[in-house]
Structure formats: structure tokens, C-alpha cells
């Protein structure tokens, strides 16, 4: 078990190709991360997230021989999950979107990073700010929410975001700036600023 934890993603991929049961180790390694990503991105219910992840991991398994070790496995897995989520929403238009959920640590990150874009009223409680920021992010168009979630919640760098969303790094930077600008407009409408 300790041995497996020390193995790199590429090594786990090689193991999974030799032995089907070994794919379980890759699933265990990425299940929580990808589940959190889908939840942050589209606010799907747990049942829907499970459906999406099942499809995503099966697709990852089917395409294991296409994995290029010069890429990060994480970016590749995130990309496939992202696509499966979009496909799922397209097929199931009546899916209920629950409010974006973030834990306290994520809220702290959000407040610290995004409050530089707006002047948050001091008297508003931290909890209230977190709730309003979550709502503001939910109101962003998909393309802006995607980059903000990847950058500030998943802690991805520009290269990783570029590989996940299949866009040049320059475009990633521009989209993040526009996303922040759009967030600022929404925050002002929601009276998040003083």
C-alpha cells in the first residue's frame, strides 16, 4: 500500500494496462479531486457527480494507451472529466444545479483572492461574504467560472489550465482577467462592495 502511494501516475497507468484491477489505484488517487472539481464547477448533486465520474473514469481507462507521460496525468484526467461533465449536462438538461459549495478553506481562499477586485464592506461578516462570493461565482458564464475554479480553487497553473481547457496560455491569462472583471460587475450588482 505504501509502495503504491509512492508510485507516480505514469507507473500506475503502466500497472493498470497490465492488470485491470490495478486501475483501482488511479481511481482512488483522483476520485476526491475530480469529484470536488465537478461540484465546484457546476454544483451538481452527489448522485449526478457519481454518474459523471463513472463515465469519466471508464473513458480514462479506455484511452489509457493514449496517455502521454510528457503531460501531467492530472491535466489529462481533469480534461476528460470536464468534457464528460459538459456532455452530461447536455444530455440531462433538467438536472438540478445546487448552490456552489465550498468549505471554509476554499472560502478563505476566495475571499483573499477575489476581494482584491472589490472593496468588501468591513462590517459584513466573513461567512456572509463567502456565501455571496459563492453565489456571484455561480452567476458567472461557464467559460469564466471554469478558469476561476481551476486557478483559485484547484490551484492549477496556466500551463495546466491550458491543457485542461485546450486553449493557449495567453488566452488563459486573458480569460482570467475578464472573469475577474465580470465577477467585479456581478459583485457590485449584489452590493458586495462598500
Amino acid at each position, binding site marked *: 500500500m505504501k509502495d503504491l502511494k509512492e508510485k507516480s501516475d505514469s507507473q500506475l497507468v503502466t500497472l493498470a494496462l497490465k492488470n485491470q484491477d490495478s*486501475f*483501482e489505484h488511479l481511481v482512488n488517487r483522483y*476520485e476526491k479531486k475530480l469529484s470536488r472539481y465537478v461540484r465546484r464547477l457546476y454544483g451538481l448533486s452527489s448522485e449526478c457527480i457519481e454518474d459523471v465520474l463513472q463515465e469519466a473514469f471508464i473513458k480514462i481507462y479506455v484511452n489509457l494507451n493514449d496517455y502521454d507521460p510528457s503531460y501531467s496525468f492530472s491535466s489529462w484526467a481533469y480534461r476528460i472529466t470536464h468534457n464528460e461533465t459538459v456532455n452530461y449536462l447536455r444530455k440531462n438538461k433538467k438536472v438540478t444545479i445546487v448552490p456552489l459549495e465550498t468549505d471554509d478553506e476554499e472560502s478563505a481562499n476566495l475571499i483573499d483572492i477575489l476581494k482584491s477586485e472589490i472593496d468588501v464592506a468591513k462590517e459584513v461578516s466573513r461567512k456572509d461574504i463567502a456565501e455571496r462570493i459563492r453565489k456571484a461565482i455561480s452567476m458567472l458564464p461557464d467559460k469564466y467560472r471554469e478558469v476561476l475554479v481551476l486557478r483559485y480553487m484547484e490551484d492549477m497553473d496556466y500551463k495546466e489550465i491550458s491543457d485542461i481547457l485546450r486553449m493557449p496560455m495567453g488566452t488563459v491569462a486573458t480569460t482570467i482577467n475578464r472573469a475577474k472583471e465580470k465577477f467585479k460587475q456581478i459583485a457590485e450588482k449584489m452590493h458586495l462592495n462598500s
Partner: protein
Amino acid sequence: MSKLSNKILDKIKKGKVTPKPRWYFVLMHTLLGTAILTSIIIGGIAVAIVIRNLSLTDWELARQSAGGHVRSFFMIIPYIWIIFIGLTIFLADLLFRHTKKGHRIEIWKIIAASVAISMVLGGLFFITKADKPFEDGLRRNLRPYEQWEKKRMAPWRKEILKQRPPKGINMKINERKFRELP
């Protein structure tokens, strides 16, 4: 083993799901590369045809026929081939962005590179006359292309006929006389 990993492995085993073989992906990437190359080469041939059309033009005649330099240019230019060049460049760019690392390059750089490569190839095909068999083949085998060319050349023919020598004059004799001129 988590609940999800159980479900996934169960589904894989029951559905007898297996990873696609390596050769499948090698084949797909090769086909993609071939399609990009083909698109660029065809774009180059189209550029060569345009250059050939423009270089064989008697611009003075064209100006007389059209009634001005700008009009003559727009009369001569082979629109179909220009549109075709645009399509091949668009296709090459679209296909390139589907390669493993194609998405990392800015779109304007991909377009600029496609245009530059098409121009260079077009020049090479023009010099080596590699485009001629292609266009001749189209003329012979594609009736709509032949008809389009005739329609495009129609104003030319009118102009050339206007400048024919008077009746009764033997063109051959005229040519001999012309050659004897100092």
C-alpha cells in the same frame, strides 16, 4: 477500495471494457497529421494556380476590357481558388488544434504559419509547374469547372476578337513580315 472504484471496476468487468490498443492511437494521430499535410499541399497547389492565372494575364488587355486597373484586377482574379485557399487554411488550422500540443499555440500564429507555408509551397509548385496537371485534370474531368473557366474568360475573348486583323489578311504572312522587321 472505495464505493465508486468498486462500481467502476464492476462496470469495466461486466461490460468487458478494455483499453484501446496503442496502434489505434498511433493510426489516428498519423491520419490527423496526413490530413493536415494534405490540406496544406492542396492549399499550395491552389496558390500556384492563382499565381499562374495572374502571371499569364495580359493586363493591358484586361484593363481595356474591364475599363480600369482595379476593375480588371477583380475581373481576372480566380475567386473560386481564393475561396478554396481560405478553406484549406481553415481546415489545416482546425485539424492542427486537435493535435496533442496544437492548442498551446495562439490561433493567429497557426493561421500566419499556414498562410506562409501555402505561399512558399505555392511558389515552388508554380516554378516546377506541379499545379498544371492538377488544373488540366480538373478542366478535362470536371465539366462545371470547365464551364466556369469559359465564363470567366468570355470578356477576354471579346476583347481579343476586337483586336483581330482585318479580313483577307493572312496571319502567317503577317507573322513573317513581323519577324523581318528590324
